């Protein structure tokens, strides 16, 4: 279609559907190419075509040779141009710069003529039907039914795009996942909704409620050093056990006697169920041959006795039938070491989860099961019609919350029919019928997907999402969960939109806003990954503290270790023993290690900074530069900060010359951008470009090795980073991109792969000074952070706005979002960078409030009784 054809098509449609003519945003005014030739091309000719015209195509970008309007309207090309010009990346610093007026004209031409954005009514885009991801599902189920269903182990991981796991387009449902959804629905309802009005009374005694019967002064914790070196042989001292959550852990190596009691009110048959688990710490190729005897006594009588060797992670449940008189009854768990003088490599433990006392068993003693009144607050009517009405009332309330929208009568009817059908089965009950209908609700696509209704506003081009949909968008954005009662109430009354500001404030103050903190920082800054990123602490430490003797010993040990034990010569055995001794002596000395506790503290640090800025209503610039950190003793020591004691994370003011403060020098960012044994200046540079400046470099051309992969010109030895940089700088293919990322990464070279400070690597001093592509120079990371916070303040605003809007909407950004992003950045700027302004801005923005209509919506809108209004897809 030429311009004429397009106009013709628009005209035809305008005749069919009133109210469209001239409003089609995708069609620029006729002669866009002509305007380009007269107004824009001369400017490009002067400032851009050296690299992007006349046959040059640096970075794959060509800005000339357009032959038609259609050709010209290449949205992704011009979006790239817009970002680069806006961010001051183009033209490059060493080339003549666009005068301000020209620059402004170019940017507004791209937005106006190419993107055809309408500032008064930007295109809101459209989010595809989005299913709940694992996190949202878990939170929603917790909110809805008070059940913590561990989706992280039960469901497969969600796929991601643009770094986020909540993007509608990328979230799919495989047959496997669907099966899991159906089974999860059963499990969750079975765990929460009682299916009988009365049941055997149950009393749970948690493992941690078991008390040691040994006097406190006799208790000595069995000592085990971190390297797993055997504790002193001899008679082990009794232990009291260690509380682990609700459970109690008992080591195999020391005797223990723990007891709990139960006061029986009635005489009769009872059951006692004791739950145990075997636990061990994994150790490479090291086994633990200790064993113990576990004995269970009830009221003094031994009811169970069995030896345990190393068993892996297994659960055991033992049930004992007892005939009890009223009064106090005692359950005792005893552990007696059988073999306890073998190396305690695996910290073998019996985990006492707890004991359940059930009874008396006869039905005259039965009581309403736990949570009965919550699901069935009134007595079940005997009369069939009233019964049905009761089921209807219960199921309508549940389905409305679960579907997060109004539920029509027909749906409730179907649920009631399902409940009645199930209740009529032999042995079933009214309650079981209702529970089965609730299973169906949780299995429904209306629960699993976020189905959004829309409403038309007279005179507006784009329909708004309805108030229920708005409630869900808010709650899933700020809480990663379903709306609460207040949001539902406001939506029902049609007042949510009017009270948006107050609601956002309330929601951010709510503890559930932790989910925004956790899930957004977890992905924007990859803070989640720090708990699993493979880092070999030993190797990282050795790079900064080279120790040829130890390295040689390790190599020797490994070399001989690969020889079959039987085939080793006596010399080899002696050599291996020597190497092992040397290695172990070194290994016993304290050195920084990226333990799981430290990783966890790092993750919390990143979350706490975000939370601090959010809750204290501070500027997002503090993500880049801050004179404080959040640490506990462990992390403070890792960072070389003194005077912090205990496990609790807290805000600590930094000394004036500290390089820390802000996300770039946090352990999370530094570790997740590293390889297992060493840092990667390239990965770190790319991280800053992508996650802080919003200008990810194009991926390397195929076949070009990355920085660390570049081969030394002389063919041997490892390139120092400086040498690699020089190589990049001398190769024009590498230079155009690596000039942007390398200096950023080098500024962080003082931090090793564990995020600890260092002055040298492989005995070479670290040089952290550098020069940005903008021409600005810096001497260390402190100066770099200042430059980012001042010169690149706006880039950072754009980047953060883009990431947060992507997360909030659940879709990737496109050219038509330029207008919204411009506005968000203006709002951030006007609010001195306060994070709350960005969040409120997003919530109020067009793409959050509205939705681009497609033909399906029109049918939907009609079905809901709104007037149909046609619109074209841009």
């Amino acid at each position, binding site marked *: 279609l030429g311009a004429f054809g397009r106009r013709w098509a628009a005209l035809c449609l305008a005749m069919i559907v009133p109210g469209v003519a001239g409003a089609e945003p995708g069609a620029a005014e006729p002669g866009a190419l002509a305007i380009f030739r007269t107004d824009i091309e001369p400017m490009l000719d002067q400032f851009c075509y050296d690299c992007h015209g006349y046959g040059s195509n640096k970075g*794959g970008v060509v800005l000339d040779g357009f032959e038609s309007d259609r050709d010209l309207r290449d949205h992704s090309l011009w979006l790239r141009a817009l970002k680069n010009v806006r961010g001051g990346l183009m033209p490059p610093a060493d080339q003549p710069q666009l005068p301000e007026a020209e620059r402004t004209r170019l940017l507004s031409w791209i937005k106006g003529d190419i993107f055809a954005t309408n500032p008064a009514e930007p295109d809101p885009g459209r989010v*595809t*039907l*989005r299913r709940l991801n694992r996190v949202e599902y878990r939170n929603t189920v917790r909110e809805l039914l008070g059940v913590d269903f561990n989706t992280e182990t039960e469901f497969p991981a969600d*796929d*991601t*795009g643009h*770094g986020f*796991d909540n993007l*509608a*387009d*990328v979230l*799919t*449902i*495989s*047959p*496997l*996942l*669907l*099966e899991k959804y*159906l*089974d999860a629905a059963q499990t969750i309802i079975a765990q929460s909704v009682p299916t009988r009005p009365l049941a055997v009374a149950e009393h749970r005694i948690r493992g941690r409620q078991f008390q040691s019967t040994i006097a406190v002064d006799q208790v000595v914790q069995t000592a085990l050093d971190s390297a797993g070196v055997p504790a002193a042989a001899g008679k082990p001292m009794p232990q009291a056990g260690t509380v682990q959550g609700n459970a109690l852990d008992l080591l195999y190596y020391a005797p223990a006697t723990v007891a709990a009691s139960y006061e029986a009110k009635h005489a009769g048959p009872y059951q006692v169920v004791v739950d145990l688990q075997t636990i061990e710490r994994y150790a490479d*190729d090291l086994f633990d041959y200790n064993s113990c005897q576990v004995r269970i006594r009830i009221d003094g009588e031994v009811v169970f006795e069995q030896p345990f060797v190393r068993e892996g992670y*297994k659960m055991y449940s033992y049930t004992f039938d007892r005939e009890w008189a009223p009064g106090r009854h005692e359950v005792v768990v005893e552990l007696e070491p059988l073999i306890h003088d073998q190396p305690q490599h695996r910290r073998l433990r019996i985990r006492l989860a707890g004991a359940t006392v059930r009874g008396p068993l006869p039905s005259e003693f039965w009581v309403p099961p736990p949570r009965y009144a919550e699901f069935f607050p009134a007595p079940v009517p005997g009369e069939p019609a009233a019964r049905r009405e009761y089921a209807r009332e219960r199921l309508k309330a549940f389905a409305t919350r679960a579907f997060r929208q109004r539920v029509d009568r027909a*749906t409730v009817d*179907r*649920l009631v029919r*399902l409940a009645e059908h199930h209740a009529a089965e032999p042995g079933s009950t009214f309650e079981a019928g209702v529970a*089965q209908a609730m299973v*169906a609700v949780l*299995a*429904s696509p209306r629960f*699993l997907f976020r*189905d959004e209704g829309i409403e038309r506003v007279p005179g507006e081009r784009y329909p708004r999402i309805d108030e229920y949909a708005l409630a869900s968008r808010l709650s899933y954005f700020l809480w990663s969960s379903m709306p609460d009662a207040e949001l539902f109430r406001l939506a029902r009354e049609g007042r949510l939109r009017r009270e948006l500001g107050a609601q956002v404030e309330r929601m951010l103050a709510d503890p559930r806003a932790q989910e925004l903190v956790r899930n957004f920082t977890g*992905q924007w800054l*990859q803070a989640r990954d720090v708990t699993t990123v*493979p880092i*070999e602490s*030993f*190797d990282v430490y050795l790079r900064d503290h080279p120790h040829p003797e130890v390295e040689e010993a390790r190599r020797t040990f490994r070399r001989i*270790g690969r020889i079959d034990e039987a085939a080793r010569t006596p010399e080899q055995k002696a050599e291996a023993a020597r190497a092992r001794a040397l290695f172990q002596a070194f290994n016993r000395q304290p050195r920084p290690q990226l333990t799981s506790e430290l990783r966890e503290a790092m993750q919390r640090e990143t979350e706490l900074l975000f939370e601090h800025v959010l809750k204290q209503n501070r500027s997002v610039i503090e993500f880049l530069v801050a004179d404080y950190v959040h640490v506990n003793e462990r992390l403070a020591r890792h960072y070389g900060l003194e005077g912090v004691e205990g496990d609790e994370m807290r805000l600590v003011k930094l000394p004036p010359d500290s390089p820390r403060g802000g996300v770039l020098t946090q352990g999370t960012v530094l570790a997740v951008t590293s*390889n*297992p*044994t060493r840092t990667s200046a390239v990965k770190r540079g790319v991280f800053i470009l992508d996650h802080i400046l919003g200008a990810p470099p194009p*991926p*390397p*051309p*195929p*076949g070009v*090795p990355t920085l660390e992969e570049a*081969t*030394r010109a002389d*063919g041997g030895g*490892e390139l120092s980073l400086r040498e690699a940089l020089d190589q990049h700088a001398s190769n024009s293919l590498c230079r155009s991109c690596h000039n942007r990322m390398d200096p950023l990464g080098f500024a962080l070279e003082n931090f090793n792969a564990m995020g600890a400070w260092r002055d040298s690597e492989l005995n070479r001093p670290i040089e952290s000074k550098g020069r940005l592509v903008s021409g600005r120079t810096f001497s260390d990371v402190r100066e770099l952070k200042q430059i980012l916070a001042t010169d690149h303040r706006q880039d950072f605003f754009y980047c953060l706005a883009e990431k947060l809007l992507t997360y909030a909407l659940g879709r*990737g950004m496109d050219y038509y979002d330029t207008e919204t992003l411009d506005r968000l950045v203006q709002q951030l700027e006007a609010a001195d960078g306060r994070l709350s302004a960005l969040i409120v801005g997003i919530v109020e923005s067009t793409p959050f409030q509205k939705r681009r209509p*497609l033909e*399906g*919506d029109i*049918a*939907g809108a009609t079905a809901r009784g709104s007037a149909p209004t046609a619109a074209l897809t841009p």
Partner: protein
Amino acid sequence: MPAAADLELKKHLAAVSRRHFLRGLGACIALPAFGSLASNRLVAATERALQLATTPTGAPLRTAFVFFPNGAIPQHWWPAGLGRAAQFNATLQPLEAMRQHVQVVGGLDHLNANPGDDGAGDHARGNSVFLTGVRPQKSATDVRAGVSIDQVIAQEVGHLTRLPSLELTCDATRASSNCDSGYSCAYVYNISWRSATTPMTPESNPRLVFERLFGAGVHGQRAAQAQQRIMSRRSVLDFVLEDARQMERRLAAPDRDKLGQYLDGIRDVETRIEKAERFGAGPDPDVETPSGIPPSQAQYVDLMYDMMLLAFQTDSTRVATFVLGHDGDNRSFSEIGISEGHHDLSHHQNRQDRIEKVARIDRWYVERFAAFLQRLEATKDVDGHSLLHNSRIVYGSGNADGNRHTHENLPVLLAGGGGGLLHPGRVVHHGGQPMSNLFLSLAEQAGVHQLERFGDSTGRLANV
């Protein structure tokens, strides 16, 4: 439906599987005896059963695709010479004892994994092209690959077994962030695709794999539990289908695609229910349910292989895929004294020490594979042959030389006898043909006859 014969087979398999044949992690016990099964009963299976995923003796014909990450060091991978007398090099050395069961297949390419207009992203393509043979759409959100060969086969033969196919992975943790040069992570962690837009999500937790196959709980109760669980799904189907229909009416095309995935899943569940009714209670192997992901990588990989073995032995499925690690995987191998990340090392700068380390990782993966083949060989199938004899296991990577990101002459092994249809024990070089040609041949052997083309195939691969 080959009802009678099939049922007979099931019953027998169920009986067999009750024997204790696996002991602990990755260990294997001697073969159960199988004298009782009259082979003529199997041969009497209906014609259709004989054609589809069935060996000439009437036993199930299993097909698996195992993916290892980051290619292999070519000079250590490729044997010296061709044919039966070829000399295995360092990487394939662990297969020496099994060499008569393995075909080393050279000269197969995945040209669609090479950079085209889509530029960088060789790892994402290495994964997503591996079983599809098509160039995936480069996008973070607009995910479009192709139907993978395992799914092509499963769609034809899946009705014969309780599960049409099984998808496994040892990628238990996933990084957030962008995956590879603008490709969605969906391309990186999935190799099996049911449709262009629906990846078959693999399962990483051996406990969940086991419970899906055989039911939860202790031995003796599982089959009933599994049956009960499958049947209980039925009660909600009418309701959710009606809900889906109501929703569908007001959805636009991209939404319908998402809802379509839901509906496809529902149809699969319906099929499973029908099968559960027809086949009755399933097998319940007398082994312990795995407690979860073992801490050691070797145990983890072995245990996942065991899950595949169990699934095949009990004829729970005839099609499986297994991702040992996605292409670009950067895990370290401290278990064998290698601290560096695998991907990081694979760009070895031609430094000898790094090449050696990568080769040792390649070999470690082959060791695990060889041990799996040994267990398959030690397990007798219904027709008296070994399970390995009645299987076709493709073992390969999406990159050939990880250092240079090449996708020609991919490292590929084809293990098993295919029920006598394959000719293992050789090194063959096909001189540069699409990997898809091999897939086309394998599909045909499994009874998928109407398939003329697959991915970038140019014809069927001869001499397999």
